[in-house]
């Protein structure tokens, strides 16, 4: 049947319907977003589902567990912390949408620990965090581009950058694997490119390089990586990618009986997650890795011991590198909020990070680089080796911390002593 053309009144009704619904749900203005007399609302975007989620999906719950512990012990100047987690599936487009929800709908005070290089790059540009003055603390990415304070005035890193990591690995290769054929598998976005640039600057030449696209990692694609590495005769393989890519790489290599000396980047080397993803522990035995934190099994470490206790009581998840990282993000967030004072503002929080952030207690061994002109987080790594139990021990038996920058600065053996864990894991700084 041929229908008549729409009446003009229908157009008006349709538009009034759309606009009326906008009006009906409009919210009132606020004084300082996310802060009330009893609560401070914070937000995080991270992949809770999808290919890149293994491991990362534990961070938010670990942070929440630490915040619950702090809340049960009086909160921050009497305010309870609420953390809202949003699943971005490691997709830039979703990260933008979810960050918008956090800022515009949930009205969080600040973002804490947003995860991923490509996702955060997109979020920062699209959501305009700097112009809005939204603090974005402790980015869960080591992309050195985020250390540009002029472009990212409200963002603060926490991880040592991928460039720093690559420089320290380059030094390690020179000292311990000279003359061997070198292979490199890397994620071909800013994550891997950051490392490649630093390797080039350090003069490291790889005989085989295998890039992979984020999201493409699978057993099938890992077959092609391993074929290329084996065909090129790589004896030492450096890996710069996420855990969901490390797992198929190691599993496929083991099945193909290809056993180079693995040097696994800090991002994709959590033994517990790798084992959960089907990597035989025998493959991990002897793998070398740059590390910033102590092993999550090292109960002689005061931070690890305290966090394990909190995890047992509030989280009930297997305690691994990701849980340790999540707890530490919580610890640093509480110190930042305390440093911002009893009536925190977004501007005050940023000022507190700049003026007091470098003295915060953190589980990582290296110094923090925060200042008025720098938003650099940690600044170094030590080399570790995995044992037959999949545990991580310092290479050579003791922690030898190397510090450097993301530029042309030298790699230096450091004597830095990290601050002590606050009593009972509860910061009292101001």
């Amino acid at each position: 049947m041929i229908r008549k053309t729409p009446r003009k009144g229908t157009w008006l009704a349709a538009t009034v319907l759309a606009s009326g619904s906008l009006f009906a749900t409009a919210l009132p203005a606020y004084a300082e977003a996310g802060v009330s007399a009893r609560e401070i609302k914070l937000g995080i975007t991270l992949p809770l589902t999808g290919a890149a989620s293994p491991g990362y999906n534990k961070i938010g719950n670990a942070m929440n567990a630490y915040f619950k512990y702090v809340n049960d012990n009086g909160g921050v100047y009497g305010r309870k912390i609420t953390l809202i987690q949003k699943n971005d599936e490691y997709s830039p487009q979703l990260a933008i949408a979810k960050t918008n929800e956090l800022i515009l709908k949930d009205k969080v005070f600040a973002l804490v620990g947003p995860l991923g290089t490509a996702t955060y790059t997109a979020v920062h540009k699209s959501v305009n965090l700097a112009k809005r003055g939204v603090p974005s603390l402790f980015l869960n990415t080591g992309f050195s581009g985020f250390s540009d304070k002029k472009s990212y005035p409200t963002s603060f890193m926490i991880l040592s950058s991928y460039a720093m990591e690559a420089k320290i690995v380059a030094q390690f290769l020179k000292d311990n694997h000279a003359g061997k054929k070198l292979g490199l598998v890397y994620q071909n976005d800013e994550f891997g490119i950051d490392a490649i640039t630093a390797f080039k600057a350090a003069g490291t030449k790889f005989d085989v390089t295998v890039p992979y696209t984020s999201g493409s990692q699978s057993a099938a694609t890992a077959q092609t990586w391993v074929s290329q590495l084996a065909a090129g005769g790589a004896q030492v393989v450096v890996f710069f990618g996420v855990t969901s890519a490390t797992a198929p790489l190691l599993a496929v290599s083991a099945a193909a009986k290809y056993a180079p000396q693995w040097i696994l980047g800090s991002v994709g080397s959590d033994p517990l997650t790798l084992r959960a993803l089907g990597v035989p522990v025998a493959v991990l035995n002897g793998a070398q890795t740059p590390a910033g934190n102590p092993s999550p099994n090292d109960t002689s470490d005061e931070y690890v011991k305290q966090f394990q206790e909190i995890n047992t009581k509030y989280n009930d998840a297997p305690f691994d590198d990701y849980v340790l990282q999540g707890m530490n993000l919580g610890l640093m967030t509480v110190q930042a909020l305390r440093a911002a004072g009893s009536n925190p503002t977004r501007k005050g929080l940023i000022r507190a990070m700049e003026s007091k952030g470098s003295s915060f207690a953190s589980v990582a061994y290296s110094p923090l680089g925060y200042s008025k002109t720098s938003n650099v987080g940690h600044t170094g790594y030590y080399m570790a080796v995995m044992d037959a139990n999949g545990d991580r021990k310092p290479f050579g038996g003791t922690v030898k911390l190397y510090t450097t920058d993301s530029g042309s600065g030298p790699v230096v053996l450091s004597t830095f002593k990290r601050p002590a864990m606050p009593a009972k894991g509860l910061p009292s700084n101001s």
Partner: protein
Amino acid sequence: MRKKIILFILLGWLLLVIGDRVDELRVYQGAQIAMYTIALASIVLLTGYSGQVSLGNGAMMAVGGYAAALTLNNLGSPVWFAFLMAIFFSALFGALLGTAAARLSGPYLAGTTLALAVGLPAIANQFSFLGGEPGIFFDVGLPPQRLGQEFTQYKWFFWIATLIALLALFITSNILQSRFGRTWRAIRSNPLATELSGIHSSQMKILAFTISSALAGLAGAVLAMTISLVAPGAYTLTLSFALVTGAVLAGVSSLPGVVLGALILVAIPEIADALANRLGGGENVSSYLPGLIVSILLILSVIFTPNGPGENLHRHHRKKA
């Protein structure tokens, strides 16, 4: 015609006034409603009028989004030119596809366009100039300074999206009321009789595909503007299905209904969030709920109101009259 122009100008004025009164979230959602409105209009024209079922409108949106971003980034052109290029390239792509699609109908056409929706955005991963999975930025710039400090980026997006949506709807409405619209409706109702009347139905179907693709491409560019990004993840199969659902719910041959459809599509994530909070499933549940809601609405609509609730309401209204 003059009355219609005045009506659209009044609608535009009303929307801009409202944009000034609501908070940033609603302004942002308003821009999304405008984007979906254009995208749904492309389905109404193609499916509701010319009778061609396409499940690949998300892919057409991707063509428009990438065309606009590449134009803006590589030529440094004005924003309006980037939107024009989005229209041009998606229309060109639609004409090519329409030429092939004119030989297909029913499930074969739906299957072909479905394959396009799955495959086309993924192609971006294969070419570095398309930015891979992270995509490429599409930055239309800050609002003009004369609009004042309080004038936010999202309000600027809302203004642009609303203007484009109103223009697109005005032009589409005129096309549908012209001899082209009447011919498409005739082809949809009785293709054989139309051919016997001396109308070249294949050419008319290609024309419908071309104009529909141009609209979808324009919507893709508006989507890219609202998130400042063009990436494969923005033009997924889920988007294509959501658009079909929105069009069916709005009444697939009702152009004013697209506003209602767009409103529903923007409201679904909000409803999912509220449901997830009530069910206590948190973010894990709310990630999956929008897709589930879209699927359920589509199934229910096809079972109970095959032409969509909007169409039924319209018919009820006509009977009463």
